[in-house]
């Protein structure tokens, strides 16, 4: 899968959708619920299940990153599966809320 910045992906096993904010440094597989994510415009296959090890859920509006590959994704829809890259869970990128300057 080509995880280009701006590309959109959906989970094969739950409702989660993401957009890639920053591409990873090399080839990698982005997964949700333990299964590789599929192209945003692809049909979700039937019968898929969220794997227990990746069932923590993904919350809309949160960002996830992997410092090693540099990938960063934004969850544009939430779902029951959690995100991973080549089997390694992606960490929640905590953002300190700032006072509004706009």
């Amino acid at each position, binding site marked *: 899968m080509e995880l280009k910045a701006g590309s959109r992906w959906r989970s094969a096993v739950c409702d989660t959708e993401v957009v890639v904010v920053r591409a990873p440094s090399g080839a990698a597989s982005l997964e949700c619920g333990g299964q590789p994510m599929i192209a945003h415009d692809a049909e979700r296959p039937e019968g898929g299940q969220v794997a227990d090890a990746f069932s923590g859920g993904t919350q809309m509006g949160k960002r996830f990153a992997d410092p090693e590959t540099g990938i960063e994704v934004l969850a*544009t829809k939430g779902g029951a599966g959690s995100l991973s890259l080549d089997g390694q869970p992606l960490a929640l990128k905590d953002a300190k809320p700032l006072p*509004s300057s706009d």
Partner: protein
Amino acid sequence: MNISMLLEMVADSAGDRVAVGSLTYAELLERATAGAKLAGDGFIAVDVNSEAVPIGLFSAALAGVPYIPVNYRLADEQLRAIVERAAPGTAVVDPDVVGRLAGISGLQVIDRPSFLDSIAGGEERGVAPSDPDAIAVLLFTSGTTGAPKAAVLRHSHLSSYVLGTVEFLGSSPDDAALVSVPPYHIAGIAAVLSSVYGGRRIVYLPQFTPEAWVDAARREAITHAMVVPTMLGRILDHLESSGERLPALRHLSYGGGRMPVSVVERALTLLPDTGFVNAYGLTETSSTVAILTPEDHREAMASDDPAVRARLGSVGRPLPTIELEIRHGEIWVRGEQVSGEYEGIGTTVRDDGWFPTKDGGRLDDGGYLFVDGRLDDVIVRGAENLSPGEIEDALVEHPAVAEAAVIGAADDEWGEVPVAFVVTSADVTESELQTWVRDRLRSSRVPARIEFLDELPYSETGKLLRRVLKSEL
């Protein structure tokens, strides 16, 4: 990512919230989707503030073409020259502007009411373009010399700024932002994007007057607002004379120009329940790169330590997503929101990502940034560099001086000498003011001449127009 996804997410999760005017977030997205079909090769807006601004911004994003807001107050010749550069595309304009844009090649002109009518039915959403390096917004900056330049802001810059500074749906449904900065100012663009992603209602003030601003703030129970320095001073004057207060206002941010400390102190005294935010940023950095937070304001105001107290005159500390350094007196920044690019000119961002702002500044021990103003405005007297801001601050501290501007004037002996223009509120003489400055600063800073004016020339976004003063010398 394309900035339209910010709106899509909010429309999905909180589509019933009011976005702007009577439009909900779901409706805003439907209309922007319809507007995208009319955008052509570029969405040009020559208009006052209204819901057509966020609709236009997202229409352009969904169509994958730039949004190009232009100042409708420009003289005909300048306006046409800019729109000719921005064409081809569709221009959505105030009805009064239609005739002024006649006959421009490649331009389709629609007046705002007709545009809003034609998209009122909305449109089912499609798939937004995915190229993060596409141009989201072109902003023509006034510049001090020569032809106007168009700053290029790509989707990646604006979305990085929003993702790094705004919490998704972090606003309560009762929050409302009053936007009085014009759409062709970066603060007007940032206000739309930050409000949308936070899920905050936008209230537009089409034309700023202090009375209209206070009226709108009270009527709409405004919780957040951003103003430029000249606006804040006038709002405070109005509050003082009318006795009105703003009980709903939780956050008032100011920026876009130099703010006298005396005005900040007045504001904190007059509105003790409002959190003040001083924001520093440039068009080329997708707006804010440093902020002085409400806590910083309160701490500085309450402190006996002169160094802490002085921070009321700072712009605070860099955003966590921004790196900031002072190199030879110049402010340099690095971060994903930094564009630094001009159309047809290219980028001034270095290969390692650092961008020279052309603003002079310094950091104190706590990492607070003090901005001295544009390096182009520095006055070179003999071999000494003088910052106009320092002299202006000293002058404004005088009880009889309401406003001050200092520029360099050619001088046979020194090359350049500082000359001051002041607006006074009580009687004071030139020599009294010169003595006042000499008592506070080194003698080289004393203005060689002081002119008394009824008012200083400002742009409508609060920038002091030094070139106008220069031309008077």
